[in-house]
């Protein structure tokens, strides 16, 4: 393993993030506050409680997941797409590093940034609602796993994308709907039976459910099922990345 190279990529990507640190913090804090005002205060006053938790607190795990998933994908996809776009990718390809080291560097940095944003949102949430986290270790583990697996997915999108439109396509058309329909703002059990069945095909449901379990100790699906689902998703992404590595798809002529 060329750890020096991994560190170089990681540090370079993180430096880009810290150059725009103000935007990086203000934007998630602002959007989270808006969600709390709209969903927590306006709608929450009519819903009051979901599964024994106040509605304002209930949406916190979903809100964090929403940001963490979109941030992981956009950071990682942009991270690898940008060198392709401006041509600096030649340096990655001619350096004495293999593809997995490149992946660790970019995905690691993207996941770190998303984790950072997730933490900021959690801190912001404490200002709006009372939350006690029942399984803090599981909560952190879930958060990190989600950051990594979706950063892997973002990396694949970044390799695949041929232009900026394609870079936005998957997050916009697939990921955002899945996250919104994945129970960020409601419990699956609140849906009509047919939609409950359909929801179980949405992988994000398992993530949010598991994450919510770590907070409140109750969930839509059993925690082990959630863990299995995220493990499966991570394995799938790793499989695709392994295939890209083997074939040099969209990277090496």
């Amino acid at each position: 393993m060329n750890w020096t190279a991994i560190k170089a990529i990681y540090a370079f990507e993180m430096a880009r993030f810290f150059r725009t640190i103000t935007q990086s913090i203000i934007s998630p804090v602002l959007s989270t506050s808006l969600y709390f005002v709209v969903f927590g205060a306006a709608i929450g006053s009519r819903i009051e409680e979901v599964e024994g938790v106040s509605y304002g607190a209930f949406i916190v795990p979903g809100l964090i997941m929403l940001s963490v998933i979109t941030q992981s994908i956009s950071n990682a996809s942009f991270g690898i797409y940008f060198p392709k776009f401006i041509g600096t990718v030649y340096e990655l390809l001619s350096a004495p590093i293999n593809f997995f080291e490149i992946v660790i560097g970019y995905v690691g940095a993207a996941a770190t940034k998303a984790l950072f944003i997730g933490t900021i949102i959690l801190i912001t949430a404490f200002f709006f609602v009372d939350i006690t986290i029942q399984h803090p270790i599981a909560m952190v583990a879930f958060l990190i796993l989600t950051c990594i697996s979706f950063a892997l997915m973002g990396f694949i999108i970044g390799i695949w994308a041929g232009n900026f439109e394609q870079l936005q396509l998957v997050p916009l058309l697939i990921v955002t709907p899945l996250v919104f329909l994945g129970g960020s703002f409601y419990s699956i059990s609140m849906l009509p039976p047919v939609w409950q069945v359909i929801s179980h095909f949405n992988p994000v449901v398992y993530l949010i459910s598991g994450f919510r379990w770590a907070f409140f100790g109750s969930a839509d699906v059993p925690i082990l099922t959630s863990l299995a689902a995220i493990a499966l998703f991570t394995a799938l992404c790793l499989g695709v990345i392994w295939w890209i590595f083997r074939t040099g798809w969209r990277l090496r002529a």
Partner: protein
Amino acid sequence: MPTIVDIQDLRKSYAGGFEALKGVNLQIEQGEILALLGSNGAGKTTLISTICGITTATSGKVTVGGHDIKDDFRAARSMIGLVPQEINLEPFEKVLNTVRFSRGLFGRPADEAVLEKILRQLSLWDKKDSQIRELSGGMKRRVLIAKALSHDPQVLFLDEPTAGVDVELRKDMWEIVAGLKASGVTIILTTHYIEEAEAIADRIGVIAKGELLLVEEKNALMARMGKKQLEVQLTEPITEVPLALQLLDVELSADGQSLIYTYDTNAERTGITKLLSKVAESGLVLQDVATRQSSLEDIFVGLLQEDAA
């Protein structure tokens, strides 16, 4: 000199069937400057990209310092620095940061003293904190060279280092290349400027349509293929070549003021003595005599025509 880069029967064909490299064999010697000369699309960049790992070869074998570029890619690539043809740099990054990144990427431990030495060598030190977008085109090329040198490579590939660069900058670049050679770096540069190859290379390779037509010492190449011309200027213009000179291969210049005799420097007899005595016999009075050697350009054009025939 020992061989540092060994290329054996290197082939590259694309999915569409286009053959960019058709079995290239080339041994690059340690410490030399090799210029690969060829027109656009001849395969120069493909050859470099394949050696550096950006493009995968269809078949063939390349070793750098004895390390196979596939099986032992870490050792092979650690020895190579690449300066690409396009100015591929992150516009918002600072000069020092981007060079530091390159060194790390090649697995070398951080060493600010080395970075300073390289930046000073390329007159970039006072620009170290500038964003790349603030630099001129020539400065950006220097940054690309600094990045390529950041890990102390033994072999440096320069892909068209002076394409689209003005004359002054080009001379500047030649000086940099000469300085690098003096520090022991082996340099392979591609160019389609013949004068560039003529000015700085030790050896010259000519590529056309994915084939290496020849590789030869620059001086030997010019001597072997070089024809010389002797120009005899006359005091009074004449209308036709005198009878005594017609048997020799002599041409009359358009203004009738001089006779031009083309001869082969490698021939046993150049025929100059005979020519001059015939000129005297014909009663012509000489004003001046001059010789000139054909340039690499003439040789190059000749080679390509031969290849096309």
